[in-house]
């Protein structure tokens, strides 16, 4: 995976995680373009699209769009699963997660994502393990 973006229906970015190094300007440009492209798509359309030389996989959960950019050889359905797994983790952690949770606790969302993916690859597929690690780290914080 090259990057993951979360944004609202109004086009506001809630989370961005980049697994490749790009200069800031480029990141902004990519983000802007991608958000407009995805928001323009109708609800019944399929979740995959080709953009530049990447494949974009996106899914909408309530008012949030989860969007991932993967390379040509990567598996799209697998990415959808990753997105779903992430949402499930957030749900478990925050207890019935909503967009506001992610807005106010964005750093926690990042930490969870960091436990799920590392360097763009799946790190831990077991929900239990991820949540255990997060809990332990939270404990350390106290």
């Amino acid at each position, binding site marked *: 995976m090259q990057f993951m973006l979360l944004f609202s229906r109004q086009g506001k*970015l*809630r*989370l*961005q995680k*980049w*697994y490749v*190094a790009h*200069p*800031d300007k480029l990141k*902004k440009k990519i*983000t802007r373009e991608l958000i407009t492209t995805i928001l323009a798509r*109708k609800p*019944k*359309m*399929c*979740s*995959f*699209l*080709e953009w530049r030389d990447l494949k974009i996989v996106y899914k909408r959960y309530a008012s949030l769009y989860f969007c991932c950019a993967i390379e040509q*050889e990567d*598996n*799209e*359905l*697998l990415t*959808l*699963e990753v997105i779903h797994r992430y949402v499930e983790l957030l749900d478990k952690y925050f207890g019935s997660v909503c967009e506001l949770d992610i*807005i*106010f606790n*964005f*750093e926690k969302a*990042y*930490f969870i994502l*960091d*436990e799920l993916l*590392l*360097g763009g*690859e*799946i*790190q*831990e*597929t*077991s929900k239990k*393990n991820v949540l255990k*690690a997060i809990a*332990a*780290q939270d404990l*350390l*914080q106290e």
Partner: protein
Amino acid sequence: MEKVSEIDNIVHIGNKETDFKEDTLTIKEKSVDTEYDETEIKCNEIAQKEECQSAHEASFLKMALKKVKGNIERMFDKNLTDLVRGIRNNKENEAKYISQCMEDIKQELRQDNLSVKSNAVAKLTYLQMLGYDISWAGFNIIEVMSSSKFTLKRIGYLAASQSFHCDSELLMLTTNMIRKELNSQNQYEAGLALTSLSCYISTDLARDLSNDILTLLSSTKPYTRKKAVLMMYKVFLKYPEALRPAFPRLKEKLEDPDPGVQSAAVNVVCELARKNPKNYLSLAPVFFKLMTTSTNNWMLIKIIKLFGALTPLEPRLGKKLIEPLTNLIHSISSGMPNHAASIQLCVQKLRILIEDSDQNLKYLGLLAMSKILKTHPKSVQAHKDLILQCLEDKDESIRLRALDLLYGMVSKKNLMEIVKKLMVHMDKAEGTIYRDELLSKIILICSQNNYQFITNFEWYITVLVELAQMEFGSKQGHVIGAQLMDVCIRVQAIRCFAVAEMAQLLDVYTATSQFTIMQEVLELKAPERTLESMLKYKVLPQHIESVFIQNIIKIFAFVMEKHELNEQYDDILRLCDLVIEKMSESVQSGELEVQERASTSLIIIKIVQEEILAKKAVGNTIIMDVDDPLESKPIVNPKETIAAELLTLFSGELNPVAPKAQKKVPVPEGLDLDAWINEPLEESDSDSEPEMTENLFVKSDKFRSDRYQPEPTEDELKKGSLAHSGAIAWSVTRLQTGPSTTPRDLSREARKYEQENNPHYLKGSNSTENSNGNGNEGTENIPVAELNLNAPLKVVGQKRSDKYLSINANKKKSKKKGKKKKRRSERYSSDENVDQGPTVEIKQVMELPEGATLSDSESDHAHKDDHIEHWILISI
């Protein structure tokens, strides 16, 4: 809350002394910084006043005060939640609010207290997400990262992963810190460092830290091992030398008891294998075992993908895999079939996928089908109906995928319908990438296999014309134009029809890029009306204008011929005036190419005008003695029209030339292709065309004298080999057929009076004479910094006109012609004496004996019909 209770404490302490209470209250109310000193002094005073207070208590008081001050300050600080809330509340003046927050943050960062700093960094992270640049805070982030408290560290590392760049110089500062983290006892700290590192690891960091990460691979905690394994992949990407020592350890991890670590290792090997499958072939048995025994779907998918990368190298592997893969396919719908041996099964399953109502599955089914199409087109064709259905889908992505598949689906019968459908789509899809895709697809489909599927070329031309009429980006216009050219050139029968269509188009559109190529086609036939509409153009991009000018002359020649035969000199003169007017404008154009063509055309037209006037005058008076050598005006045999001379410029068939034709021309003996002839002065010589070279080549074999044989041919070859692309070839062919092939007599006359006016002209000098010799005198006098474009403008056509002119020269008895002949022979003699001038090649061209035909080169070309890209003009 905590802070308030602290103050309360202080107040309680102070309650012993009644004054103290007031003082603390004043601390609260007044600005903290300025009051601090005062209160400190006051405290000291109080302490001194009250003897009961020991020194210990005094210092305690001081500390408490300090804390109060700090807390009060911090009380007014915003924490992250406040920031977010504030931004949400200030939607209308967001920028102002945020800049104010930035100021606060900068203030906080100047404090020594790490927790304050980390608060600021947390806020900065949020702002970075919103899109504000925080790279100026790099140092501060590193400071926070170095904190010993986990909370603060976490914030620091998060900020780092968001904002650090692998090319940032700050990274050097982090190396040791990260190393310390990696070796720490706390697995979560190590994990934190690893996670963060993966986002910005640079080559230096990779090199320095690879050993540490490697040791972590054998850590006792699976959590750490897992992260380390994944991290190794990133390290390998940046620092490939680390792979070799690390590889055995990585292999061990494939057998790790912990499933998380195992799947991480599988992941890494899979990604690595994608880049370099050969090295991982030895691991195939391990993966096979994993595949058959594991139930972890995620891992299975990765393993299948890995096998997909490995099987092309090891065919036996493929056979072995069929069985387990088919089992998998039947039992779970995981991953996409990617093995050629189970194609039938795959295609069946794919059909099911495509028929599924879920758009995602449809998309994937189509995607997989297109991959199979490349290797097994027949099996996909069976599902033509389904694909055509998908074309109608509302979803653009699916339509695009179906388009890709269409390539293999067309046949003679359904081509027209399909294209019709696609055109309808194009109408609907204004201004999107989809449209461009559609266009290129249509053209691709229609032109495959040398137009194998097109039964009615007229229909195809109309389609192309309709396409041209739609609005496209300039790139696409070029594609259409090229396609039109292609069709017209290859399909003789269709030319009349095509030309009529083009003429219509011209009337309607005069400023679109497609038409550059159309003009080429118009060379063959064009009514007068077209000429006038062409003259109406105002502003065109440079290359189009130059082609336009070119073609104006061509058309003018045709029209003139028609008129001349009917002796309608007035019409011709009128046309001449029109053209001259237009050309005079173009001569002032900013573009080099346009200027040049315009000026040459101008001269030509002017000369023609004179001649026509003369002819007209002659026609009106009694014809004088034709043989009178003193007669200054040329008497032209009525049957020989001036137009005919002009037309010799443009006669000739266009035939495709094989791209390898140049290479296939045999090298004559005794010719060393690599030896330099002259110092490599003339860079412009490199513009010459291959076919021209070939012709020269052949001729030189047969007719040229030994003395000249090696030099020009080598040079021509050099030139030829330099200009191999078809585009240059035919465009230069165009160039050649243009002004440079002016009929000898006209150009000579023009040159004569140009030379008289040219102060730089040195009579008898080879270079100017020769470079002028091609008839581009007009360009010499234009005050433009011009390269010797003259050099390559010797031509196939030139030889033809040589031929014609020599025939003409024999027939015509005008003194002028005689003069020119003498001059020509003069020049020949002078040519013979010059060996080493840089323009030796040019002279050679002119020197070719009459009767030299291109028939030889024709036969060369006739045999090479595959991949036809180049065009060559051959004599009829």
